[in-house]
């Protein structure tokens, strides 16, 4: 069964521009991924999974140009004590990065893992991505596995004293970056990974996260503010028994962002929280696509997504909870909400539940609304100017998502950014 002509042509056109890096020990994984891309074809406008987001600019051979934006403020997370791992237009920069050694954690470039005869990364690279292709195809992730030019392998074995910060600098107006990270959190280990920066004009990022029994990983990312940048990201996570994975994403600006999260709870009593807050003004399209599979007993999952949209911005949420047979005592929660600051903006949501166990508690809700006029008048009647009051209510709207971040200082830093963004638009 071949691909439809159009898809075939588009797929071949992009593949013709890409060169697979020397694979070494990952060559087989890369080749397998390439054949997945060839079989699946790249996303097209008619694909059901891309109904609300046009993939054209993500799959066209040349990345549309995106100006490097001078935010005029210190990069996110600068004030934190962290290990900085810097990528410039998708290429690791040793000069700008910190010394990567720290007790309880190892950080290596993907390219270096083949130097060792035995390396955990060989069993993870492309593995969760491949698992994540069923039941819904994610060809951009397979493309990433095949062609990623760089990335890191992070193994957490203890409790490192500070977070790892993956910093993505955007330097060239036409950069087209593909990064692939793999993360393995060993039994009982705990770490925090921070990510920030626009990365490139077009960014395809994939992160595979394997959390062993009793491990904990916190992931907080702030996607960069460059107005014209585009990004397609995939987060694949597999959670073992009693493990915890909490991910939060802040997105401010960006003409197109598609963030997919594919989470599998495979060990009993595991917990996955996936949350996001985004604020978009004008030419802004933001898509959160989440697929959480419960395949063990007594697991908890939460999806909390909030979007503030103005001047014709578009928000998309596709979120699914799949509870497999035997995944009893599942606690699944999903909420997606948008605050539309004008009539031109829109929010498109498709929440889904698919449940094959009988003893589960799952709920989902999706709302779209304007600013609360009663609240606004109340604040103004106390002397708070209308624009400040609107900002307060907007931040209040986002608070439920931001509250998903466990570390108060990190949450506070994100709120400060949001305040700044709102204040600049008064």
């Amino acid at each position: 069964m071949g691909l439809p002509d159009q898809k075939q042509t588009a797929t071949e056109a992009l593949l013709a521009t890409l060169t697979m890096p020397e694979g070494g020990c990952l060559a087989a994984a890369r080749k397998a991924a390439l054949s997945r891309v060839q079989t699946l074809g790249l996303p097209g406008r008619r694909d059901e999974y891309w109904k609300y987001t046009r993939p054209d600019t993500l799959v066209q051979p040349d990345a549309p140009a995106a100006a490097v934006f001078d935010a005029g403020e210190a990069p996110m997370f600068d004030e934190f004590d962290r290990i900085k791992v810097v990528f410039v237009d998708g290429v690791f920069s040793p000069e700008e990065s910190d010394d990567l050694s720290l007790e309880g954690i190892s950080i290596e470039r993907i390219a270096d893992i083949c130097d060792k005869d035995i390396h955990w990364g060989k069993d993870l690279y492309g593995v969760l991505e491949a698992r994540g292709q069923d039941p819904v195809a994610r060809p951009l992730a397979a493309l990433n596995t095949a062609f990623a030019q760089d990335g890191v392998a992070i193994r957490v074995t203890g409790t490192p004293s500070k977070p790892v910060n993956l910093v993505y600098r955007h330097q060239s107006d036409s950069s087209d970056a593909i990064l692939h990270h793999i993360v393995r959190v060993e039994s009982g280990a705990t770490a925090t990974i921070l990510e920030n920066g626009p990365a490139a004009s077009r960014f395809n990022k994939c992160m595979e996260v394997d959390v062993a029994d009793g491990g904990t990983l916190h992931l907080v990312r702030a996607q960069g503010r460059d107005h014209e940048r585009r990004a397609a990201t995939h987060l694949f996570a597999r959670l073992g028994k009693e493990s915890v994975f909490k991910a939060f994403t802040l997105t401010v600006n960006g003409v197109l962002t598609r963030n997919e999260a594919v989470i599998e709870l495979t060990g009993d009593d595991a917990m996955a929280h996936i949350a996001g807050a985004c604020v978009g003004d004008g030419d802004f399209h933001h898509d959160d696509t989440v697929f959480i599979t419960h395949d063990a007993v007594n697991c908890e999952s939460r999806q909390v997504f909030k979007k503030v949209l103005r001047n014709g911005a578009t928000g998309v949420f596709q979120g699914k909870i799949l509870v497999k047979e035997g995944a009893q005592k599942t606690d699944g929660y999903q909420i997606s909400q948008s605050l539309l600051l004008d009539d031109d903006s829109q929010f498109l949501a498709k929440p889904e539940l698919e449940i094959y166990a009988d003893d589960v508690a799952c709920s989902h809700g999706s709302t779209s609304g304007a600013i609360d006029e009663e609240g606004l008048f109340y604040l103004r009647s106390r002397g708070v100017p209308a624009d400040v009051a609107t900002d307060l209510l907007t931040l209040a709207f986002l608070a439920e998502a931001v509250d998903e971040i466990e570390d108060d200082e990190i949450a506070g830093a994100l709120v400060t950014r949001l305040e700044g963004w709102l204040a600049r638009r008064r």
Partner: protein
Amino acid sequence: MLEIKNLHVKLEEEDKQILKGVNLTVEAGKVHAIMGPNGSGKSTLSYVLSGRDGYEVTDGEASLLGEDILDMEPEERAAAGIFLAFQYPVEIPGVGNMTFLRTAVNAQRKARGEDELSAADFLKEVRAKAKTLKIDADMLKRPVNVGFSGGEKKRNEILQMAMLEPKMCILDETDSGLDVDAMKLVSEGVNALRDEGRGFLVITHYQRLLDHIKPDVVHIMADGRIVKTGGPELALEVENNGYADILAEEGV
């Protein structure tokens, strides 16, 4: 202080006249009470004075200290000195009570060209004032009015009033839903603010509140107008005989 002349107000959305010529002057240092049957327009008057959307002034005027307020935005009126204690205080999930108070206090100071209160000074003041109203630290931390009981909401209104130190305080049925103890706290809070330079307009159904907050003047409002004005004894008359006699007498 507050001067209302021949105020006519209709709803913006529908052709319904609600205030039909209200005349009222509240002098500095005085407490005026407005009583009247449900639906007579008391809340509408308080909303129109504080600048809520949805009403259209078709005739008349209203001024504070000689300055026309009807063209001002709600926040400008607040900075000019108008404060409304809401009949139904609004819940604002996600905004902490303390943040709300500090934002309001500093916004008003800024509008008046004064320096912002330092965090420490603000905290000291809010704690002291909250204490007299028996508002605990937890209530200050919680989101504005969310999960507050009826009495807590009303005490919170008085706390805001105490922090903002307005010139003209309008209280819309602040006594409704209060038990005896809360009524006492609220009244003491109001009385503590009574001052030569401050006017009060207290809207209530019951004499009970006026036992605590002694009015200088009592007005009866009916069908969008002040139909009778008198001294404190007028409130007692209402308490004993209801509105029927007064309204019949005034031909409403």
